[in-house]
């Protein structure tokens, strides 16, 4: 039993030489995964699931419209609304919004503007078709219904 009672002189320090590495690792991890959001989304967003998804390659050619029930029903009601950038817009405001977005692009890229519609799955088709009709009016014909992959979380 004497073996166990023996006092050891070993140091109890944990080596901290690798601590910076770990911190850097965490830093990199968060740097990579964090998506910087430019706008605060004020509508309910539960994107429908689908299987036949395609990726959009050029991010700068994409503009987003968010459609859904407002998060603050007391202020904005319970009917689905359209959000562009930080503000709610009416259906008629879409033309102006698309023209503004086209204005940000170079001349040869103007036709390639893709509208990404992020529509909440509880929305009715009426408002969605209003948007697509307005898009046709301003000849912004590329459209993407945002969806997430079915079966995979």
């Amino acid at each position: 039993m004497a073996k166990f009672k023996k006092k050891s002189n070993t140091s109890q320090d944990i080596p901290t030489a690798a601590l910076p590495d770990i911190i850097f690792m965490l830093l990199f991890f968060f740097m990579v995964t964090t998506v910087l959001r430019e706008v605060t989304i004020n509508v309910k967003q539960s994107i429908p699931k689908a299987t036949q998804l395609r990726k959009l390659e050029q991010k700068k050619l994409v503009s987003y419209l968010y459609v859904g029930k407002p998060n603050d029903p007391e202020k904005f009601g319970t009917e689905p609304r359209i959000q562009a950038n930080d503000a709610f817009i009416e259906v008629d405001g879409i033309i102006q919004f698309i023209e503004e977005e086209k204005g940000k692009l170079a001349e040869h890229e103007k036709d390639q503007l893709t509208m990404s519609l992020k529509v909440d799955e509880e929305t009715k088709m009426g408002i969605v078709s209003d948007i697509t009709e307005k898009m046709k009016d301003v000849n912004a014909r590329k459209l993407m219904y945002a969806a997430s992959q079915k079966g995979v979380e």
Partner: protein
Amino acid sequence: MARSGRKIPEVNSSSMADIAFLLLVFFLVTTTIATDKGLTLTLPPKPDPNEPPPDITKNQRNIFKILVNSSDRIMVEDEELTDVTKLRTMVKEFVLNFGKPTSEEAQALYNSLPASLKALSKKDPTSSDDPKEAVVSFKADRGTSYDVYIAILDELQGAYYEIYGDRVGISADDFRALDRKKPDEAEKYKIAREGIGMQISIAEPSKTGDN
């Protein structure tokens, strides 16, 4: 024994950095950065108000009609459909029917198809003549739920992507992932779509439902 006890035992920490990098790489690989994904679509151009609408003399058999009402009930070719997933096979059979090929091109197209796609061709005289003529017409109502609309659109596009994939011997998933900037993949994309356009006509919704 006493001599060894006085020594300060250390864990060799030189490989700690390696472990850290390993973890870093692991997370880098497994984390999916939120990318923009969805169902892509190109809208038809706005009809010119100065020109009269073109006369459409399409045979009914060449149109595959899908109607959805405001209570999300689906009608396909005048019959009610309850299982949306059946739509994919129905559309594939409709497009590849080759009931009465209208031109030699269409016949050549049929001959170029792989056996798996030829098997879908029923040559039914009451269905589409050939893929060039076949149009899938999809009409929803303003009161249709968006998720039902997406589910149907997903099946329709899926049917075409599966046909395209089969033509070049890849899966529908691989076909959608083809990068058109690479010449060899762009070539595959072209071959797959040759003669079979994705003719999905989405009509403006009717207005019986509210909003």
